[in-house]
């Protein structure tokens, strides 16, 4: 197993300039009229907001500042089974910090976790105890960000295999805790299911903030479960187009996206708006109640500077090619599982009665605020919940 090589993000100025030139020269077009007071995102991405975002992008966004944030923590690249994996590796405080593997999803990146690294690794800086520090491993999914581009689609089940090797062989840990949302929750589910300590893997516990890997053959039974199923079905009908497209014909989308930075920004920003807790104190919704433009653009820019939009969408196709996200009927994840249920998550957890059929739950938290990108949206709330779980596992 090759030794991980230190890595820093250093993007050539010509790459940044090429992107910004295209943003500056974007030729704006029309969008359907939206009545005053109606949802400006009803047709997809709001053009008024895109103009505002792009004006900021072109004039004020500072990639070098974002790069500095990305480089504030130690990064490495390692070859894992032929896949080049980029990851953060942050040593936690205390005598014996337990390793924690954090996995992002689409259209996120490792950027989602930058804001929680210090609190998780060094709780003493945040009013906690240094002995509760966790050693963090935060990889970029295959085909995402600074990881290598696979030659053909691969999915979360295969990624879990790579992650277990990364943790146990490349980094030499006996056991670790895994956490994830979005695709990260599916990868993390597979880690618990296929690579748990009960199965000679290293994964000792998992923490999920999305309903990813599901128990096979389980149908909604109770009235609450049926209500959840009906609502989840309606949400998928309205929201799953990107998924259906990326899971079937990612290449038909790629020509536009790989040629248009604003196109990528619009495709991704729509998701951040729709999937997040964007409600302000006055009850009105705006994407910047959840994120700053710098946050949105830093994440988008990672897709652009690495030219990974296309390969990131392949993960959907890879997911279906490897057989989807169901456990064998009658089986479940046996390692201890924490569920972090954020209210604005669009792929909602079913009632606990149904989740228990797939997971050995020993922590369940219903949050008051937050959505799909929980680490980025709620920061310390998310980190405290993960820390609490890790502490509890130590007994």
């Amino acid at each position, binding site marked *: 197993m090759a030794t991980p090589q230190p890595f820093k993000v250093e993007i050539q100025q010509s790459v940044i300039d090429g992107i910004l030139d295209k943003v500056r020269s974007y030729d704006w*077009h029309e969008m359907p009229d939206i009545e005053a007071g109606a949802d400006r995102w009803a047709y997809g991405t709001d053009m008024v907001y895109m103009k505002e975002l792009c004006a900021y992008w072109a004039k004020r966004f500072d990639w070098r500042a974002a790069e500095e944030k990305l480089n504030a923590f130690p990064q490495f690249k390692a070859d894992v089974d032929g896949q080049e994996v980029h990851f953060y590796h942050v040593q936690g405080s205390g005598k014996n910090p337990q390793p924690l593997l954090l996995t992002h999803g689409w259209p996120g990146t490792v950027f989602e976790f930058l804001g929680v690294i210090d609190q998780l690794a060094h709780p003493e800086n945040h009013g906690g105890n240094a002995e509760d520090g966790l050693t963090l491993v935060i990889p970029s999914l295959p085909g995402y960000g600074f990881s290598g581009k696979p*030659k053909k689609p691969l999915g979360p089940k295969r990624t879990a295999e790579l992650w277990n090797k990364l943790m146990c062989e490349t980094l030499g840990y006996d056991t670790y805790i895994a956490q994830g949302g979005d695709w990260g929750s599916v990868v993390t589910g597979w880690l618990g299911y296929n690579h748990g300590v009960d199965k000679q893997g290293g994964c000792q516990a998992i923490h999920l903030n999305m309903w990813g890997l599901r128990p096979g053959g389980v149908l909604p039974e109770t009235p609450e479960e049926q209500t959840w199923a009906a609502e989840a079905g309606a949400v998928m009908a309205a929201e799953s187009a*990107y998924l259906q497209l990326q899971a079937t014909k990612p290449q038909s989308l790629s*020509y536009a996206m790989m040629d*248009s930075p604003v196109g990528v920004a619009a495709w991704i920003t729509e998701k951040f708006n729709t999937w997040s807790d964007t409600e302000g104190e006055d009850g009105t919704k705006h994407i910047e109640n959840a994120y700053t433009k710098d946050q949105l653009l830093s994440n988008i820019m990672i897709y652009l500077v690495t030219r990974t939009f296309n390969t990131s969408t392949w993960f959907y196709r890879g997911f279906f090619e490897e057989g989807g996200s169901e456990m064998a009927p009658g089986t479940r994840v046996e390692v201890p599982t924490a569920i972090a249920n954020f209210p604005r998550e669009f792929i909602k957890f079913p009632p606990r009665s149904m989740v228990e059929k797939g997971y050995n739950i020993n922590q369940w938290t219903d949050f008051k605020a937050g959505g799909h990108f929980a680490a980025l949206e709620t920061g310390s709330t998310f980190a405290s919940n993960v820390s609490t779980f890790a502490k509890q596992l130590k007994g």
Partner: protein
Amino acid sequence: MTHRIVPADPFKIHVPDHEIADLKHRLEQTRFPNEPDGNEHWAYGTNLSYMERLVSYWRDDFDWRKQEAWLNSFPQFKAVLTDDDDQDHEIHFVYEKGSGPNPIPLIMTHGWPSTFREFLDVVDRLAHPEKYGQAGPAFDVIVPSLIGYGFSSLPRIPIGPAAIADLWHRLMTEVLGYDTYAAQAGDWGSFVTSRLALQHPKAVRAIHLTMLPLRPNMKHESQSAITPEEATWIKEMKTWWSTEEGYRVIQSTKPMALAFGLADSPAGLAGWLADKYYRLGDTNKSHEWEGMEARFPMDTILTQLSIYWFTGTINSANTLYKAGPEEGSSLLQSGERVTVPTGYTEYPMDTLPITPRSWAERSYNLKTFKVMEKGGHFAAMEEPELFSNDVRSAFEKLL
């Protein structure tokens, strides 16, 4: 004749030089994606080597002025109609008067991802059959650009096929002065044409379709139980759609998530649309690009793409997929049926199974039903002679 109350102004296409230069510039700057191993037969979507060939031809060899002159060799007009919601629509249309004393007025409507150009290879054949040694009726051929497509106007508030059908009726009566007329179409045009027949059955004498968009209301007592043949067909269609409908689902829910990229990148526009020509055209799919280019020569497909690009209509065209379903006009009401005599011709497309005749009869007063051995979804472009002869012979039976 109905009194003509709305004027139509002659129209010629002229794309300014700077827009042609801008397109060329964008094509020169194109940054292509990578491609997964195993995409030789477009399994993951539009093939990269085809796209490289297409973009290179568009940039270096395609002569828009030549295609523009050809488009302008057809008499074109624009007329403005105000709809019931007080929205003005400027309708672009080709209007070729037929030979002889009594040509049949025929309005032909294209769909997505097509334009009025789809029918131009058959305009002369239908208007002047004698020039092609064909007996039978001649037609006054009217080919409009759908609202939000090509040289028609972009709606401020998207409208669906039922609303477009009312505009088409007024185009035929108030602008062109016909009392009665016939209609022909495929794809979205077949929705518009079916609605035209439902909404204006006295004026529409007969329709001929190459796609059957209306769905019967199976809960109504007049509908007999699904036959085994229909059940098999429905199942096969669902299987086909499960891997093909990504474009439809995104365009029907979040067209504006997609619009920014397609409007910024001519290669992106081409990549998005070419997949449909490949998949739905009667293309030989055994090679990365040979079958596609044999079926849709570069000049042909690039004229279609250039119309989308120069008119900036990809977003408004895609949005028909949202406005259409929102209008709720594809499911027939209980007991409702198209009473106007209807002809249907099915052209082979990809691996789609043949529609059972009984299914067509549930929604339409079906008088002719024909299955072709070649042709594809864009039959008027793919097999102009076969298509025009079939349309003529269908209307001979229907009228």
